[in-house]
C-alpha cells in the first residue's frame, strides 16, 4: 500500500518548488511597467500563493497520522490500483503512437479491447461481447466523426 500521508507530503513539496518556478518565470515576464501590471504579475502572485498554501499543507501532512487521514476520507492506495492506473494511462498513450502508425480507426478498436481487459473480468464470454461492442463502436465513431461531423481522422 502506498501511504497517502507520504504522498501528500511529497506532492506538497513538489508544489512548493513548482510555485517557486512560477514566481521565477513571472519575474522574467515582467511584473510591472509604469504602474501597470505586466505579463508576469498574475503568475508571480499565483506562485506566491502556491508556495504559501503548499507549505502549510506539507506541514499539516507531516503532523497528521493515518487515523486522521482516514477520518478525512483519504485511504492508503493499493499498489495494484496504481498499476492499473499506470497501465490504463500507458494504453491510452500507446493509442496515440499507434494511431500515427496504423490510423485512428484500427487503433481505437485495439484500445477498446485493451481497456476492457484492464477494467473487466477475464473470461471468454466477456471478451466475445466486448469484441462485438468494440466493432460496433468503431463503426459508429467513424461514421459520426469522419462522415457526419467532417473531422479529418488520422
Amino acid at each position, binding site marked *: 500500500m502506498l501511504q497517502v500521508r507520504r504522498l501528500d507530503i511529497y506532492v506538497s513539496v513538489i508544489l512548493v518548488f513548482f510555485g517557486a518556478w512560477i514566481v521565477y518565470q513571472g519575474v522574467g515576464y515582467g511584473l510591472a511597467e509604469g504602474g501597470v501590471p505586466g505579463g508576469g504579475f*498574475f503568475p508571480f502572485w499565483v506562485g506566491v500563493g502556491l508556495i504559501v*498554501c*503548499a507549505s502549510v499543507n506539507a506541514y499539516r501532512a507531516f503532523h497528521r497520522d493515518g487515523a486522521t487521514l482516514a477520518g478525512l476520507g*483519504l485511504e492508503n492506495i493499493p499498489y495494484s490500483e496504481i498499476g492499473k492506473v499506470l497501465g490504463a494511462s500507458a494504453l*491510452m498513450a500507446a493509442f496515440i503512437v499507434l494511431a500515427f502508425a496504423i490510423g485512428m480507426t484500427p487503433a481505437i478498436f485495439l484500445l477498446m479491447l485493451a481497456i*476492457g481487459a484492464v477494467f*473487466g*473480468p477475464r473470461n471468454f464470454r466477456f471478451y466475445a461481447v466486448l469484441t462485438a461492442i468494440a466493432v460496433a463502436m468503431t463503426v459508429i465513431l467513424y461514421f459520426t466523426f469522419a462522415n457526419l461531423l467532417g473531422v479529418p481522422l488520422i
Partner: protein
Amino acid sequence: MTETWTLLLGGLSAASEPSILMAIMVGAVIGLFIGALPGLGPTAGVAILLPVAVSFDGTAAIAALGAVYYGAQYGGAVTAILLGIPGDSSATMTVIDGYQMAKQGKAGIALGISVAASFIGGLIGLVLLTAFATTIAKAAIAFGPIEMTALMIFSLSLVSVLGGADPVKAFIALFLGVWLGTIGLDPIMGMPRFDFGDVRLFDGIEFSILAVGLFGLAEMLATPAADESSATARFRFRELLPKIRDTLSCWRELISGSLIGFFVGVLPGAGATAATMISYAFAKRQSKHPETFGNGALEGVAAPEAANNAASYGSMIPMFALGIPGSGTTAVLMGGLLMIGLQPGPMLFATQPAFVWTVFGSFYIGNLALVAITILLTPLLAACAFLKPGYLYPIVIAVVIYGVFSINYSMFDVALAIGFGVVGYLMSKLGYPPVPLVLGLILGPMLERGIRRTLVASDGDISVFFMSPIALAIFAITIALFAVPLLMKRRAKAKESAALAANA
C-alpha cells in the same frame, strides 16, 4: 408591455409553421447529442451546423441554430449525471451532486430534476428575454472592465463555498487553475507564457480537454476492476420522468438559479459557467442543510441546471439588442445572422420585427419540445450508463478521445487529456477538490484581463476600482461572503462558552 406580448403571440404563431418546427426538432436533437459528447459543447455544435443551417430559410436557420444551443445545455447534464463527465463547462457544477446521486442509485431522480430545472430555467429566461430585452441591453452596457473585475473577484471568492472541507487544498487547486489559465499568449502584451517552446500551447488549454481528463478519465481510473458478480442496475421508464414533488421541493433554487443565470448570462463575457457556479454557491448558502451539497443534494442539480439554461437566453440579449456577442456560442450565432443577410443590433427590432419575434417564438417551442425529447432519449442514454465498467469504459474512453481530437484535430490535446486524467486521479486520492481548479482556469484569465485593461486605461491608478458604484456593491457582497460566516461562527462560539460558563 402589451405590444410586446402581442408581438410574441404573433411570433409563436409564425414559429408553428412545419418548416420551422422541423428545423427546431433537428437542431434540438443534434444539440442534445452534441451536448452529451465530452469535448463538444454548444459552440462547436452551432459551428458544425452553421453551413447546413444557412441553406434553410433565414428564420428556420436561426431557429435550428438556437435549438442546438439550448439543446446542448440539456445534453450536457445527461453525461454529467450518468458518467460524471461534464459535456460542457456549464455542466461542471451539475457533476458535483448529479453524479453522486447516480452513484447512490438515484440517476433517474437526478435526470428528472435536471430536465425540470432546464425547462423552468429556460422558460424564466425566455420570459425575461421577451419582456426586458431592450431595457436590459442598455443596463448591460454599464458593465465595463471595472465592474467585470469586481464580478470575477466575487466569483473566485466562491472557492470558500465550493472548495469543500479543506480550504488550504481548495486554494491550492484554485491557484493551479489560475496558473493553467495563464498558459498561452498574454492577452495584453501578446507574448507567450508557459508555452514550454510549443506553439500548440499559444492558444492556452481548452477547458473541454481539462474537464474530460479531470472529471471523466480520473473517475474511471479510480474505479476498481469490476467482477462478473456485480449486478447491473435496473430502472423503469417512469423512474426517469421528472417528478412534480421533487420539482416543487426545489422551487427556491429553481427561481434563484434562473434569475442568477439570466442576469449573469446577460453580461458579455461572463458566460453560463460563471452563472452556474454563482447559483450553486447561493443555493448552498441558503440551504438549511448545506452539508448535503456535494453528496447528492437535489438542489445541487436544480440550481445550476436552471442557471445554465436561463443564461443561454440571457446571453442572446447583447447579441440581438446590441450586436455584441456575449459568448463564444452567440458569436457563432451572430455569424449565422450575418450569413443570412441580417445585422444584429438595435435596428433589428425595428426593421425585422417579424423575424426577431418568430425566432423568440421558436425558442419557446424548442424549450418545451426538449423536455419531451430528453425524456424519450434518456432511457437510451441511461441504459448505456448502467453497463458494467468493463463494457462502459472502453466506449466512454473512445468517445472522449474522438471528442477531444475533434476540437483542434490534434493528438496533442488527447495527450493533455490523458495527463489531466492522471492529475485528476491524484487529486481525488489526496483530497484536492477539482471545482476550484475549474474556477481558476475559467475565471482567472477574465480577472487578469479586467484588472490589466483597467489599469492600462487609468495609467496604473488603482483608485478607479473604487469609483464605480456597481463595483463597490459587488466588493461589499464579496467581503460579506467571508465576513458574515466568520462573525456568525464567533457569535455561536461566544454563546456556547457563555452557556458552558452558566452551567458550570
